[in-house]
């Protein structure tokens, strides 16, 4: 239902930028497409397949292999909580629980108002700031249950 209203023009534009060299650039095409739509709707993947001649099964295979791609709509802000070793040792689990409690979602889910999507990542490479999380492209380090509450509240408004 919802898919029918999706504007497919951006897909054509993205694909056309890659000349005829589609296969090796499939991941880049999918990354750019996801940046535009926020996720990868079925009709969009079908359109990519049509334009590039890459079979839809292969596109689906790539999309489901890499953790960056998503088949469902995302929230306005992505909260990525680091699950790296240093963060684990420094008690990130408590932080994660607090965020879950505030947003009322579990990992991988999006809030009902589409404001936030909660994700965990293996390591964002800022171990010296553990425990760490990212909201969109911004880092927040040395988190406590208090500071994380403030951050979530700040982005809620």
């Amino acid at each position, binding site marked *: 239902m919802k898919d029918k209203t999706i504007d497919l023009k951006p897909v054509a534009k993205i694909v056309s930028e890659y000349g005829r060299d589609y*296969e*090796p*650039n*499939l*991941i*880049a095409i*999918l*990354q750019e497409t996801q940046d535009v739509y926020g996720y990868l709707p079925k009709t969009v993947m079908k359109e990519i397949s049509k334009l590039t001649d890459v079979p839809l099964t*292969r596109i689906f*295979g*790539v999309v489901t*292999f*890499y*953790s*960056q*791609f998503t088949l469902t709509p995302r929230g306005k802000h992505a909260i990525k909580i680091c*699950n*790296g*070793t*240093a963060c*684990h*040792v*420094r008690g990130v689990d408590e932080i994660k629980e607090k965020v879950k409690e505030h947003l009322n979602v579990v990992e991988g889910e999006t809030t009902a108002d589409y404001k936030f999507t909660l994700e965990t*990542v*293996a*390591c*964002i*490479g*800022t*171990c*010296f*700031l*553990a425990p*760490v999380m990212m909201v969109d*492209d*911004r*880092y*927040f*380090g*040395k988190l406590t249950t208090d500071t994380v509450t403030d951050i979530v509240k700040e982005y809620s408004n």
Partner: protein
Amino acid sequence: MLNRLKSYDDLLAMRKSGNKKLKKDKVKVSICMTGCRALGAQEVYEEFSKQVKKQKLQDKIEVVETGCQGLCARAPVMTIDPPDAPSIFYGRVTVDIVPDVISSTILKGEVIKKLCYAEAGKKIPYLKDIPFYSRQNKIVLRNCGIIDPNSIEQYIGRKGYDAFAKALFEFDPERIISEITSSGIRGRGGAGFPTGLKWGFCRKAKGDIKYLICNADEGDPGAFMDRAILEGDPHAVIEGMLIAARAIGSEKGFVYVRAEYPIAVNHLRNAIAQAKKLNLLGNNILGSGFNFDLEIKMGAGAFVCGEETALIASIEGKRGMPRPRPPFPANSGLWNQPTNINNVETLANIPVIIAEGADWYKQLGTKNGSGTKIFALAGNVKNTGLVEVPMGTTLREIIFDIGGGVPGRHGFKAAQMGGPSGGCVPEEHLDLPIDYESVKAVGAIMGSGGLIVMDNDTSMVDISRYFMEFVQEESCGKCVPCRVGTRKMLDILTRITKGEGCRSDIEDLKEMANVTQSASLCGLGQTAPNPVLSTIRYFMNEYEALIK
């Protein structure tokens, strides 16, 4: 203005002008604008620039955005370099204190005590006196935290691209390879394969097109040196790639970088654009007839893509799954052409080896590993950050002398080395000189250099379960031993941590670890049991206490 460099003389002229920019006639204020951004470096930088302008101090003060300065525990950090006095290091700098830093430290030469690094209750204002810095030997991180990573002029001003010019005009490819081989450098990404040998295989391989790939898919949780190099000194990696390309005979390179590192991608992209403008990348480089083009490929979130053959599949636009070797990438890699893959830190070493010579490089380190290694120091340790030391340095020196020891009352228990492929090193091995072989002998691996310090409050069974959960999630599922083995081991470990373990669990774990190790297709599965085996080896009592 960046003009094309048509010859070596043009490069030398540019070095002169770049050098002028680095000349200390002003007070240089270097602010880390990479990792420190997480704690407000951006705001501090903006305030500093605003104040300098407002107080009309542009002739006196130069504010420089740099990469990582190493002592991340004190973030946000800044270094103040007066023209005729030693450098002052400040940490935990806030926006409010910026006017004070200008009026007291820069204009009057007075040190602000509360911003200084402290050890044993004593404030240490000068960078050269801080043990964290004075005990390091920065070869790879030579420019990191000193130059503006977005300025190719500053890089060239510090003799950047000079080693490449030497490799281009003075050495033939065989000579480059023999220099790298005799330097004894081994891959810094984890496996420790001799770099010169690898290049030689690719040079000798038959093929019209040869590819060069920089593996910047730094996925080990707890390792962040490659991120810091790319963010703080991206041209060093490009220069290393240019030398490697000339050695193996490649005209096309890729940098495969994690999408989770936005600043690194940004700085690298900018560096490539600048190098192209100067014709340090492209056709007929420096008028020599040598061509090399470089492209960034972004990863999409898959740990297994750090494995060579999986990484190649990913660049080809496929699911990043490994394949059996042989054929090795040196003979049949990207699009079935001979391909050479090196890690970021390895490539950043190359210009130094060519510039200073293999004999000089060999003096650093041990018989089994020459040169330095960067460790990412994190966990329960005072001075978290990046540490570069010669191979053969002991863990005690890194963790206690440089790292400042374990804070709190619990005390040191173990150091986790090598991430999910590595193991835990207990107190009894703290005095072990670290190199590839010695670390392996005690059940861990050098790996990419992640070093997580754990205090006595840490449960080693929980750590073992944590790593198993990580590799189980990241296992691509292609081969059975890894797919099923990691799942089964995780089930057992989870049961034990919940206090529901049974007596046969340890034997089952060991047996499954053995099979997964010997029968998995790629490095991910082959090393996945290491954290379990090393914790069983040194901390069996903790398993027993939970099973009882």
